[in-house]
C-alpha cells in the first residue's frame, strides 16, 4: 500500500477509536459537571457494556436491535446502583475520598465481570459483516462506520438533551453553580443520580460499538477509561465539545504514531502530546483557568 493510503488508513482507524474515547470522555464530563469528581469506574462501564452486549447477542442470541437497548438499560441500572450504594452514602465527601471510592468500585466491577464472564477475551461479531469497503485506496471496515455514526447520534442526542430539555438544563445549571441551582429548586441529589445513570449508559454504548473491533475482556476497562480521562482533561474538564475534539485528536495521534513511528510507543506518543498541551495550557485546550479554579479539588 502506498504511504498516502496507509496514512488514510491510520486516520480512519484513529477517528474510529477516537470517537470511542470521545464518548468515554463525555461520560467523565457528565459526572464531573454534576459532582466535580472524576469517576475512575467510567472505563468499567465500557467494559461491562461490551460484555453485556456479548451476553445478550452471542450467548442468548438476541438480535442486535434488542440486545443494544437492553444493554444500555442494564448499564443505566448499574450506574444508578453505583450512585445509590457507593457515592450517596458518603457523609463528608472530599474529592480524594471520592476518587478512591470510584477506584474501589472499578475493582469491584472488574471482580464481578471476572466471575460472570471469566478471564477469556470475548468476541462480538461486527454489526454488518467484515467485508472492507474501498475508500481512497484504503480499506474501510464497516464497523468503523457504525462506530462513527453511533457516536454522532449520541453527541447530537446529548446536546439536544442538555440544551432543550428541562432536566438537561437543570443538569447544566448544577454544573455551573450547585448552590444557586439548589436555591432555584433543582434537586441536586437527583441530578447526581441522573448523571451517573446517563454516564453509565453512554459508557455502555461505547463498549457495545468498540467490542467488535478490539474484543472485550474483564480487564479492558482501565485502559479505555484512562484514554477517555485523557481526552476529557485535554479538552478541558467539563467541556462538551472539547472532549469530542480531544478524543478524536488522541485517537488519530495514537493511530498515526503506532503506524508510522513504532507500535510499542503508541500510548506514549498520545500521552506525551497530552502532557505538552497541559504544560502549555494548564486547563486543557478549551478549559478556562478561572472556571477550573472554582471546582475545588
Amino acid at each position, binding site marked *: 500500500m502506498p504511504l498516502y493510503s496507509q496514512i488514510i488508513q491510520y486516520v480512519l482507524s484513529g477517528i474510529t477509536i477516537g470517537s470511542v474515547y470521545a464518548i468515554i470522555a463525555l461520560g467523565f464530563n457528565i459526572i*464531573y459537571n454534576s459532582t466535580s469528581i*472524576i469517576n475512575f469506574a467510567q472505563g468499567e462501564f465500557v467494559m461491562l457494556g461490551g460484555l453485556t452486549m456479548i451476553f445478550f447477542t452471542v450467548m442468548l442470541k438476541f438480535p442486535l436491535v434488542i440486545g443494544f437497548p437492553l444493554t444500555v438499560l442494564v448499564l443505566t441500572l448499574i450506574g444508578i446502583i453505583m450512585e445509590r450504594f*457507593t457515592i450517596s*452514602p*458518603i*457523609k*463528608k*465527601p*472530599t*474529592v*480524594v*475520598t471520592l*476518587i*478512591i*471510592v470510584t*477506584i*474501589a*468500585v*472499578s*475493582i*469491584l*466491577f*472488574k*471482580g*464481578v465481570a*471476572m*466471575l460472570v464472564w471469566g478471564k477469556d477475551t470475548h468476541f462480538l461479531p461486527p454489526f454488518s459483516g467484515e467485508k472492507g469497503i474501498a475508500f481512497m485506496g484504503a480499506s474501510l471496515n464497516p464497523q468503523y462506520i457504525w462506530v462513527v455514526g453511533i457516536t454522532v447520534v449520541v453527541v447530537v442526542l446529548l446536546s439536544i438533551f442538555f440544551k432543550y430539555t428541562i432536566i438537561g438544563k437543570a443538569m447544566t445549571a448544577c454544573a455551573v453553580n450547585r448552590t444557586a441551582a439548589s436555591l432555584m429548586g433543582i434537586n441536586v441529589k437527583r441530578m447526581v443520580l441522573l448523571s451517573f445513570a446517563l454516564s453509565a449508559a453512554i459508557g455502555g454504548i461505547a463498549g457495545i460499538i468498540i467490542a467488535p473491533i478490539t474484543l472485550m475482556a474483564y480487564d479492558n476497562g*482501565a485502559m479505555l477509561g*484512562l484514554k477517555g*480521562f*485523557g481526552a476529557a*482533561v485535554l479538552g478541558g*474538564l467539563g467541556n462538551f465539545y472539547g472532549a469530542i475534539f480531544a478524543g478524536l485528536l488522541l485517537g488519530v495521534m495514537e493511530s498515526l504514531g503506532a503506524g508510522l513511528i*513504532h507500535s*510499542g*510507543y503508541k*500510548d*506514549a506518543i498520545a*500521552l*506525551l502530546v*497530552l*502532557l505538552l498541551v*497541559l*504544560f502549555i495550557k*494548564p*486547563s*486543557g485546550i478549551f478549559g478556562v483557568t478561572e472556571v*477550573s*479554579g472554582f*471546582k*475545588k*479539588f
Partner: protein
Amino acid sequence: MDKKNSLTLLILTVCLVVFPFIVTNTYYISTMVFVGINGIIAIGLSLLMGCAGQISIGHAAFFGLGAYTSAVLTAKLGFHPWCAFFLGILLSSCIALIIGIPSLKLKGHYLAMATLGFGEITYIVFNELTDITGGPSGIGGIPKIYLAGYAMNTDIKYYFFVWAFLLLILTLSLNLIHSRIGRALRSIHDSEVAANAMGVNTSKLKIQVFMISAVFGSVAGSLYTHYVTFVSPSSFGLFFSILLVMMVVIGGMHSVWGALIGAALLTILPEFLRALKDFEIFVYGAVLLLIMIFLPRGLIGGLEYLFNRLIKKV
C-alpha cells in the same frame, strides 16, 4: 518530633525486633519485607499528598527508576550495589525536578492526569527500551547487596535491613512534618493563595517535596531489586501507582502513620485473599469500598476515634 510520635516509634521498633522471634515462618517474614518496601514509598507519597495536598498517580515510576538503575548497573555493568543505589536516587530526583517544575503548576485532576501520564510513559519506556531494560522479560541475576561486609542474602537479614531503612525514613519524615518546612507544606494543602501571601514559596516547596517523595520511591525500588533479584516492567505500571495512592488514602492521608498502616493492609490483604481464588478481586474491591465509606479519614482516623473514646471512658 513530639512525645506521642517518639513513643509510637519506639513501640514500633520493639515490635519489629520481636516479630521475627515469634513468627519464624519465612513466608510471613518475606511478606513483611514487602510491607517495608511499600511502606517507604507510601510514606514519601503521604508527604506529597497528605501534607502538601498534591496528588501523584505516577509514583510507581520512581520506584521503577530506582529498581532499574540498580538492576542495570549491577547486573549488566558490574557496578557496586551501593553506588547504583545512590545513582538511582540521583536519577529519580533529577527526573522529579524536570517533571515537577511543569506538572506542579497544574491543579487537582489536571495534576492527577499529568502524573499519571508521566507514570505510563515511564512504564512504556521500561517495556520498549529493550537494549537497556531487557523489555517485557526484564533483567535477572541481580546480585545481593552487602552491608558492612554482610550479604543481605536471607529473608530475615533483609527484613531487618529494609525495616531499618523504613524507620530512618519515618523518623526523617516526622521531623520534616513538625518543622517550619512541614508547616509551610501543610499551609499549601489548605490554601495556596494564603500560603503565598504569607511569604511561603509554594512552587519551590511543592517541587522539593515531590523530589523527596521520588527519592523515597527510588530507595524502595533499589531495595526491592536486591531482594527479588529480578525486575520486569509489570511491577511498575499504573496498577502499582494507583495501589500506592490507595495505601495513603485508605491508611489515612493526614498522617504518615496512616501511609504505613495502609501499606501494611494493602500488602498483606491480597496474600490472605489469594485463597479465595476467583473471588479475590471482588472481595478486595469490596473491602476497600467499605473502608472508604465507613472510615473516610482512613484506618488511622478510625483508630484515633476508638482511642479517643477509650480515653474518655477511662
